């Protein structure tokens, strides 16, 4: 589907570095689908990566993340910053298809050249992000976007990936749903650098803020000072305060050294994940061997763990 062959890579790279949105769009396709030339393209931009600040938005479905991001984008534009947005929605595990519906709430800046929005399907990746998300952040960064906003699949407890990728992670919740609070208790509350109670014109909003603050008070050490911000995304109320809180957050002002070490941590994770992905692909490619091993376990000729080791030998041998 993608016309860009490897011969176009230098031109594509130049386009990305020059901030050309069409080149950025094609570069993202190349990297997302790992089409010919994606690796030289990425290595060709590495020396221009590390300038943008990355803000992550996550939280349960229906909390108003996309609407809040729409307002957050507008606030960044008022602050004269260019914005890149990566909005991730889930892929169906059954068909691989996806409805990418975040962009429908982000139309206020649809004709603003300073805003570039890209929708991504999670494509089987657990953890709330698409596996290509880190590289797409790099592409947007290299293309000169000042602020990159990541919005993740709002599934609940597993979106911890985002914390490794964003400088500042904003966890958005809404009042009135007891299980909302339950959902963020154990999982994503811990990764929040900032907590937002959206829809704060609703009657239970004050209660939600109180509960969150009470929960934070019980935390020891790091993370106990997480700010709780009330917003009404549909009217933009509280969004300036949110942007201020992001700007003054210590993690938003990483030194070059801190950025380098964060990047190393990110790369370590990506390498490990890449290795796991190769193993998964090869397991799938050796379906026949897996079936045979399954029968062997059924016949009690071997046990599960030994069968897994045998499979590893088969796929890596």
């Amino acid at each position, binding site marked *: *589907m*993608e*016309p860009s062959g490897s011969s176009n890579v230098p031109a594509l790279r130049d386009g990305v570095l020059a901030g050309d*949105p*069409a080149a950025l*769009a*094609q570069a*993202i*396709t190349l990297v997302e*689908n*790992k*089409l*010919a030339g*994606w*690796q030289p393209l990425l290595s060709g931009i590495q020396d221009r990566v590390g300038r943008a600040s990355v803000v992550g938005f996550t939280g349960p479905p229906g909390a108003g993340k996309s609407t809040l991001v729409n307002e957050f984008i507008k606030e960044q534009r008022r602050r004269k910053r260019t914005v890149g947005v990566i909005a991730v929605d889930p*892929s*169906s*595990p*059954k*068909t*691989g*298809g*996806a*409805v*990418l*519906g975040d*962009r*429908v709430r982000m*139309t206020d800046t*649809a*004709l603003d050249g300073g805003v*570039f*929005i*890209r*929708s991504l*399907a999670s*494509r*089987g990746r657990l953890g709330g992000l698409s596996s290509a998300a880190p590289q797409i952040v790099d592409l947007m960064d290299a293309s000169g976007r000042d602020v990159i906003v990541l919005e993740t699949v709002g599934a609940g407890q597993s979106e911890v990936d985002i914390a490794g990728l964003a400088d500042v992670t904003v966890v958005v919740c809404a009042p009135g749903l007891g299980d909302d609070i339950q959902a963020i208790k154990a999982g994503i509350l811990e990764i929040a650098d900032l907590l937002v109670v959206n829809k704060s014109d609703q009657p239970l909003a004050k209660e939600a803020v109180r509960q969150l603050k009470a929960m934070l008070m019980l935390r020891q050490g790091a993370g106990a000072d997480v700010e709780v911000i009330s917003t009404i995304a549909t009217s933009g109320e509280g969004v300036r305060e949110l942007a201020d809180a992001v700007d003054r957050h210590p993690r938003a002002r990483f030194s070059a050294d801190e950025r380098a070490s964060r990047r190393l941590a990110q790369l370590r994770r990506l390498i490990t994940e*890449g290795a796991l*992905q*190769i193993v998964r*692909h090869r397991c*799938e*490619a050796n379906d026949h061997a897996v079936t045979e091993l399954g029968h062997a376990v059924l016949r009690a000729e071997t046990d599960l763990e030994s069968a897994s080791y045998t499979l590893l030998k088969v796929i890596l041998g």
Partner: protein
Amino acid sequence: MAFKTKLPLKILLAKVGFDGHDRGVKILTSILREHGHEVIYLGKYLMVPMVLEAAMQEDVDIVGLSFLGGSHLTYCEEIADGLRRRGLSQVGLMVGGVIPDKDIERLKNAGVHAVFTTNTDTRDILTFLDAFAASRVAPSTPADS
């Protein structure tokens, strides 16, 4: 499940102009997802440049427009023309909704690849998309598999 080696089509669905009847386009969104495509639903009451900008940023394979308000000719011509002017002539264009038979020829001449009138069997849309995908340059094999 094992991920497909074939890439899904990336499809942008939208409604432009003063036409709020979006039941059909939303149903189509679900059907296309069920068929394994990645669908961006852009919403209704949009202006032509918003659709063009989204098609560019999302690097979609095909744009689908739904019309039930009689304004399909003007808008389709504008969008087909806009895609060409922006260097996006590789992007497919399909149109559905309340469209008189007599307009189909003109739409196709304007650069619309497929027109689906009322009472279209959704399987015809899926068949068209499969053929559309196959008519394109075969996608490269993912490099890491």
